[in-house]
């Protein structure tokens, strides 16, 4: 209360300058983020599926088309499994490696750097290289033949446990696993860094106390350490989910859509239909669906974090 009165008393020149500092950025975000999203939404309800703009109202037709479209249904299926495998693997590997190297292991910084450096690379470079490494005729298959297995990687058109659903066969597209491997190679460093920072934040006394209470080393991890990593896991899941839902460059550089669209994702479909096919309204509809999918994860996360600040 007292603070309020004080604030009202003098809107000092400093406060005006503070607002002026912030104003350009607010304006830019308002126009380029929110204004443009609104405009994309508007385009998605239009008939602009030609080179020249046509903003006549098309109702939901672009969305209805997409949900009955073989390619888009395949995209949603692929994105679902890509996201699940990608997040699962990044968390297990990141936490696993973090636990292995956290305790002053000799060569800790070398290992950390080996697992982290792919984070500094572009998804395009990753895609170009992994396209080779997972080439079914050579690549890793060169070594896997010792074990008598020769996966087809991203050229595999099989859908595991598939059943007819809508226009597509719903199930796990085997080819997407190859893309998951490349993405995991690149992003494991992120969860590793997060978990390492988290593990280092646990006071030694806490583990010591658990040990004094008779907990084995394994129990210390299971009952004390890993539960304390929960907030970090939430952050990793959210960040990885939003990367996975909007992924474009890795798939575009590594495999493209694949036969029967087994490695296609909404990001690639949006790009091709909009900028190669001039179906702007359809591309806008895909983009809005992508945005809504990301928002499901991000909006609660941001809301929760904001409350946590107060």
């Amino acid at each position, binding site marked *: 209360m007292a603070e309020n009165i004080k604030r009202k008393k003098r809107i000092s020149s400093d406060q005006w300058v503070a607002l002026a500092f912030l104003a350009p950025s607010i304006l830019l975000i308002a126009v380029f983020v929110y204004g443009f999203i609104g405009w994309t939404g508007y*385009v998605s309800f239009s008939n602009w599926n030609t080179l020249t703009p046509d903003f006549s109202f098309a109702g939901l037709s672009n969305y209805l088309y997409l949900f009955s479209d073989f390619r888009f249904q395949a995209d949603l299926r692929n994105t679902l499994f890509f996201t699940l495998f990608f997040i699962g693997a990044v968390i297990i590997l990141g936490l696993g490696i973090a636990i292995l190297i956290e305790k002053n292991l000799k060569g800790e910084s070398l290992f950390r750097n080996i*697992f982290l*450096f792919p984070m500094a690379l572009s998804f395009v470079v*990753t895609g170009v290289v992994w396209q080779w490494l997972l080439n079914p005729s050579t690549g890793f298959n060169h070594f896997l033949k010792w074990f008598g297995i020769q996966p087809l990687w991203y050229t595999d058109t099989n859908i595991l446990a598939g059943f007819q659903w809508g226009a597509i066969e719903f199930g796990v597209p085997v080819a997407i696993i190859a893309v998951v491997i490349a993405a995991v190679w690149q992003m494991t460093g992120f969860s590793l860094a997060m978990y390492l920072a988290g593990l280092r934040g646990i006071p030694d006394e806490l583990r010591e106390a658990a040990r004094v209470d008779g907990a084995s080393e394994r129990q210390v991890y299971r009952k004390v350490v890993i539960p304390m990593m929960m907030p970090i896991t939430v952050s990793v899941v959210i960040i990885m989910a939003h990367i996975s839902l909007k992924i474009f460059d890795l798939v575009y550089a590594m495999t493209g859509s694949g036969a029967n669209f087994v490695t296609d994702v909404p990001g690639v479909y949006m790009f091709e239909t909009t900028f190669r096919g001039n179906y702007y309204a359809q591309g806008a509809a895909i983009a809005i669906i992508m945005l809504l999918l990301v928002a499901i994860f991000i909006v609660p996360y941001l809301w929760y974090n904001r409350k946590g600040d107060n």
Partner: protein
Amino acid sequence: MAANKISTFLKYILLITLAIIFLSPVYVIFVTSLKPLDEVSLSTMWALPTSIDFSSYSQAFEELGPNVMNSFYLVIPATFLSALLGAMNGYVLSKWKFRGSEILFTVMLFGMFIPYQSILIPLIQFLRSIDLYNSIAGLILTHVVYGLPITTLMFRNFYANIPDTMIEAAKIDGASFLGIFRRIMIPLSITGFVVVAIWQFTNIWNEFLFAVTITNSDSQPVMVALQNLSGSQIVQWNVQMAGALLAALPTLLVYIILGKYFVRGLLAGSVKG
């Protein structure tokens, strides 16, 4: 104790195996890029070159050189501008909070997570209308704007650690808003600038979606040109691998030299910081 030794041994076996898998792409890039074209084939991709040949590098440099320069022309001003704006926003949002500033900050942050596909069509229309489509300046503008949420977040978290009492003391001494920013905040946030600059440099250098949709031909950054190498009729794998290495080199060097700061940026990007 013996069990302890065995578990340490197993730990190392596991880590070394993982490390080898993680490094195998690097090995393939290196050996392939050092082979002459007639020695490059998928069947011998794991074999060492019989003689070391740098011609693929000179060819990659010839093809990608102009695009590497484009990337530098893009990344340097974009990084500088977005760091500066981020510092200004972070200063206000941490030390000059006002009613609604927290909500405003959250509303800004959302912009960091959106799939850029959802703003791409209007963005291109807009850039066309102001004559910045297919130009590096257009890409700079784009990266500065969409970099605002992350740079603001990073500086806000950084400035939150500077004690408020310091600001109050300066105010009592008669320092103004700008004076505090110039003489206290900026000098105290050199590390912050390094972290933000490295983060933006890496991200903008590696970015592909904006680059491929906003520019064509002459003004394309290196990642688009690299992707185009594999799209050409005959793929010269040795040149492509040399190109991949060339394109990755600047960010890789930054990581090797300033890795500590890169990781700080990585962690700061997870909102809480």
